[in-house]
């Protein structure tokens, strides 16, 4: 058959035997997610621009309020109300304040083998379960909502072979930042990043999400893993079954293959203002910080919270530094409470926020001021992303963020522990 996982998913969604990179096909979309970043605009378009406003299948839609949650001004509140009223009127699944959209989607909806559109660039996260998730704008979203269909340009696939094991204190987060640093912020534009090998297989689904989630930061259409026992177990624990369990054929065509030995990865940071300006934490120099952030659809899950707690336990964050922690969903929040992690954070002087996008997107809670420096487990470090246009964002692992919050400057976690 000579197809990759992504090609197989697209072929099945297009009702075709075979598709190849470069072709444009009309596909049926399995599920559509939209959040408060743009849904109000899609609803306005639905109400004013369509000749025949209709919803192809309301059961495929999910609306999630997570970006500015809870609302911090009347205009945001109005956008939320528009979304809530529309969901209510049309019987669309609706989540408000329950967590970051991609985490909710993974916990509640995503199945291996599905093709999912989300009106959010990090929809590529769902590749952790072997689904083809990709971000679209609200016009694409609206078209798919009305027709149940969309078009895709079949992307070529880059394959990343992961071997070896991470050393102590090195995390999937360091790996994905390293990869983006190597291939560049447009190194995978319009392509798929497929992760494979023993190193990929050894990761649990949450860890795979860290990788898949940031594929878009290299420009990729999605990041994807072959669904295996870990995926099946995750689905079973969440009460679901896979749609398809696709694997890339041995003779599938990959545009390029990369090899990474996990044991050689170092703790790294991405320096402002580009995700691909990646250096070892030790090379970053003396950088004082004003705020740390642990959370987001990239790194707000139980693994990251455990790591942060192990570093913060019994210690206090540096005077004048703010450390924000936002669990990726209420499910994560509950588990962290049960494991006593929240008590550790509260005692260390951190602020524990409700599950939301927080400063990762910079529209609401935790925004930083003029000239301030943030170290974050979020997805982007663009200029002005976290607040004031003259502020700076460094991206790093939860361990590096926690350690830096203790030191008041960017440091490697093992330096603080020692």
């Amino acid at each position, binding site marked *: 058959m000579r197809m990759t996982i992504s090609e197989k998913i697209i072929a099945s969604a297009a009702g075709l035997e075979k598709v190849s990179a470069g072709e444009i096909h009309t596909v049926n979309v399995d599920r559509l997610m939209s959040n408060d970043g743009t849904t109000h605009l899609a609803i306005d378009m639905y109400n004013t621009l369509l000749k025949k406003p209709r919803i192809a299948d309301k059961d495929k839609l999910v609306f999630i309020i997570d970006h500015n949650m*809870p*609302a911090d001004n009347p205009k945001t*509140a*109005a956008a939320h109300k528009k979304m809530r009223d529309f969901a209510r009127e049309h019987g669309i699944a609706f989540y408000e304040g329950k967590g970051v959209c991609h985490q909710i989607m993974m916990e509640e909806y995503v199945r291996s083998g599905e093709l999912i559109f989300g009106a959010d660039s990090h929809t590529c996260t769902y590749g952790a379960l072997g689904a083809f998730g990709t971000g679209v704008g609200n016009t694409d979203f609206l078209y798919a909502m009305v027709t149940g269909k969309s078009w895709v340009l079949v992307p070529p696939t880059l394959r990343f072979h992961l071997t070896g094991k991470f050393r102590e204190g090195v995390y999937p987060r360091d790996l994905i930042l390293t990869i983006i640093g190597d291939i560049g912020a447009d190194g995978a534009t319009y392509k798929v990043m497929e992760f494979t090998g023993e190193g990929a297989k050894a990761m649990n689904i949450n860890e795979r999400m860290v990788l898949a989630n940031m594929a878009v930061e290299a420009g990729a259409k999605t990041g994807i893993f072959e669904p295996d026992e870990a995926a099946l177990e995750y689905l079973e624990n969440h009460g679901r079954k896979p749609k398809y369990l696709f694997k890339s054929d041995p003779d599938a065509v990959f545009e390029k293959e990369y090899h990474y030995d996990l044991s050689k990865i170092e703790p790294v940071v991405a320096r402002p203002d580009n995700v691909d300006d990646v250096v070892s934490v030790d090379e970053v120099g003396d950088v004082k910080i004003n705020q740390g952030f642990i959370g987001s659809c990239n790194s707000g899950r139980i693994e990251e919270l455990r790591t942060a707690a192990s570093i913060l336990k019994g210690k206090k964050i540096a005077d004048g530094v703010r450390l924000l922690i936002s669990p990726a969903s209420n499910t994560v929040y509950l588990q962290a*409470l049960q494991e006593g992690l*929240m008590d550790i954070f509260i005692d260390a002087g951190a602020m*524990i926020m*409700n599950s939301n996008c927080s400063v990762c997107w910079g529209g609401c809670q*935790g*925004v930083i001021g003029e000239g301030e420096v943030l170290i974050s487990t979020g997805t982007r470090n663009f200029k002005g992303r976290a607040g004031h246009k003259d502020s700076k964002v460094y991206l790093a692992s939860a361990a590096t963020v926690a350690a830096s919050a203790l030191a008041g400057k960017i440091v490697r976690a093992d330096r603080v522990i020692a």
Partner: protein
Amino acid sequence: MGYTCIEKIIMKNLGQNHVRPNDIVTVNVDRVMIHDIFVPFVADKFEEMGFEKIWDPEKVVLIYDHLVPTSRVEDVRHFQIGDAFAAKYGIKNVHRGDGICHQLMPEADYVKPGDVVFGTDSHTTTYGSIGAFSSGVGYTEMAAILGTGQLWVKVPETIRVTIDGKLPAGVMSKDVILRLIGDLGADGANYKALEFAGSAVDSMSIASRMTIANMSVEAGAKAGLFAPDEKVAEYCGVSIEEIPDISADENAKYAKEIRYKAEELVPVVACPSSVDKIKPVTEVEGTPIDQVFIGSCTNGRLEDLEIAAKILEGKKVADYVKLIVTPASREVYRQASEAGILETLIKAGAIVTHPGCGLCCGRSGGILSEGERVVATNNRNFLGRMGPSSVEIYLSSPAVAAASAVSGRIALPAL
């Protein structure tokens, strides 16, 4: 002729054995609190006035609570100015994101019974719960206090409120103070002190008393006082003998005396948009709501979260309704976490935010949209306080708030 509680505190402060209402006196300030919103203004005025040092930096507490977490890029400026001011003038007591000022001041031992305390916030009256004369001032006066350690006050007349008996199940101290504000009117105690007594008050926890003292200002009062008892001594970590005698004399002279029988009180709400528009919950029961807020310096303490959790245990917040819970301090969060209260609340679908002023101050934490309705446990339901003027705010106890969250309509707690 005897003296009221506030007269005694002022006499003690002045080292005099006599004062009368309407005397204008200059008190020596035992502690001041400045919060983040007003820090830049205080700093400006202080320097404009030409002061070079703070009279006693140990007595100054800076608390960042209104803008925590930040919601606008300008918010950080307040922390920067506060930190710089603290460094320049040697202020050591700075709290960043540790909770709401009025919760922290008593909780972190900054206030003792008999103290005279001023804060740049109207709800500074809260510390009357542990027998301090505490009141809100503007930032200009705060700047003057920082320089001089003194403030002129007019000795207020006192209204004595006696509540005897046992409050019925589901009736909380919030219902008591709302009822009182309704009876007195929003200016019924303007320029006066309120003094609370009676067996119902005696059996109240410090937290419940804080709710009452806190909202005394909503009737215009300068202070809301409770004579310190064993519970206060325990709360403050002192023995009752160490507390100065500031209890009112039996023959003290009051401007007015009001009595309530606790058994006759019912759950009430303050209807939009004034704090004195009080109705029994039964009259507004069934009104659909969009959001519920449990938190603030009025009702964000452990017992408030506890009763909410009790009502929400095993239930779910109604569809399309948000329940936002904001613990009053780090300490309250910690205790609620250990007691499993946060777990219960989150399982029921609550959104738990970091301790701070949150929605109550109207800058973040769940602002509403046109025509929406919220049941809230905080202290003000003014027009435009939580969004556009068309937002309707009903103030209630945490029990009524939790019950309303479950039903999606204003509801009586089933207890």
